[in-house]
């Protein structure tokens, strides 16, 4: 199928994108690579009268160290991260995650910011970046604001972005040499959306000890690292004994074990 008729706008700058989203409030969608949005529009599962293309904004591809952390522009593609075309301050974690997203031809256009703003609970970045305690940087009419990822995604394809705001990028930590991570994804076919994701990041120096499950409910779920607590927390989120419950439980166990032996 083809997307329904739409009006295409090419945003020249972040300010221009903000102006356009405010102008077409409620009828517009920002599009970066369009690798999630366009399939949904082709299937008529998503509608947008106005599409605001932000893929040509060079400022959205900027990356730089910021106060001991690292800023990744929202327009950076999965392939750029996979290939190591920017610094990976997470000891290989981001490159690993990026390389496992969909297929190379999708990774060449899909972006880290697009994935976060699209907020599909089965996508990789919402889960992977939450496990890093990353922060979203948002530019809006009232200036810039920083939102912890735990508060960025509100539910199924719903985020903290207000009309007129643009996701500029994401701040990720610089993991120390003692850090360990594991990222386990279950798919029945390479490259499809995950049925379950479990991400574990431990960095005692930064006080990080995160377990996050993705492809569950409306948004990724944080669990305690404690073996006596997380099974109960998981059981409260999905029906105990169901296929989903068993699958998520297995992925969390595998990720924690993989992290311990990494």
């Amino acid at each position, binding site marked *: 199928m083809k997307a329904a008729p739409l009006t295409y706008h*090419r945003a020249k700058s972040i300010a221009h994108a903000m102006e356009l989203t405010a102008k077409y409030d409620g009828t517009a969608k920002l*599009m970066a690579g369009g690798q999630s949005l366009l399939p949904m529009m082709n299937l008529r599962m998503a509608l947008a009268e106005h599409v605001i293309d932000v893929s040509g904004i060079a400022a959205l591809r900027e990356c730089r160290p910021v106060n001991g952390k690292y800023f990744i522009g929202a327009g950076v593609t999965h392939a750029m991260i996979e290939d190591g075309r920017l610094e990976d301050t997470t000891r290989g974690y981001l490159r690993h995650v990026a390389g496992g997203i969909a297929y190379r031809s999708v990774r*060449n256009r899909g972006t880290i910011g697009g994935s976060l703003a699209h907020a599909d609970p089965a996508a990789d970045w919402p889960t992977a970046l939450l496990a890093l305690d990353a922060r979203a940087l948002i530019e809006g009419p009232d200036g810039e604001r920083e939102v912890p990822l735990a508060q960025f995604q509100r539910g199924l394809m719903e985020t903290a972005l207000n009309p007129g705001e643009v996701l500029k990028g994401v701040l990720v930590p610089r993991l120390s040499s003692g850090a360990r991570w594991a990222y386990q994804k279950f798919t029945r076919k390479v490259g499809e959306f995950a049925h379950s994701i479990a991400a574990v990041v431990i960095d005692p120096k930064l006080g990080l000890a995160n377990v996050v499950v993705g492809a569950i409910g409306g948004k990724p779920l944080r669990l305690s690292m404690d073996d006596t607590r997380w099974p109960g927390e998981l059981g409260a989120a999905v029906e105990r004994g169901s296929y989903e419950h068993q699958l998520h439980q297995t992925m969390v166990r595998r990720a924690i074990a993989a992290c311990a032996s990494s």
Partner: protein
Amino acid sequence: MRIELKVNGESVAAEIEDRMTLGDFLRERLHLTGTHLACEHGVCGACTVLVDEEPVRACITLAAALEGRQVRTIEGFEDDRAMQVIRECFSEAHGLQCGYCTPGMVITVRDLIQRGRCADAAQIRAELAGNLCRCTGYAGIVKATELARDRLK
């Protein structure tokens, strides 16, 4: 809206509907029907073309988004040695039957070989997971890719 871009080395200017995908633009406007559209939602890989020499899916890329960019379709590889070798290997190793997936398949294989992502059959299968073939059962495609990789060393 009006767009200008390069397709197979030639400058193209056209008036298009805003919602037009790159795949429809190539086939319906430029009559470059070697780019095959099947699923039209980014799953099958049949419509894979190069944009600025990187593989992308023409069915989930808006033509409007490619202003000033360079597109290369299956018709644009006549002087490309790697593609010539890959085509020979696909023919020899029975890497195709009906040919519907083949343009996208060989463009993807060329990219895998260039990036060194075809060390063994398992890696080739994983990397080609985004290109569906309903005829061959993939064995011939994997063999053809290994053959082409070795000949292009």
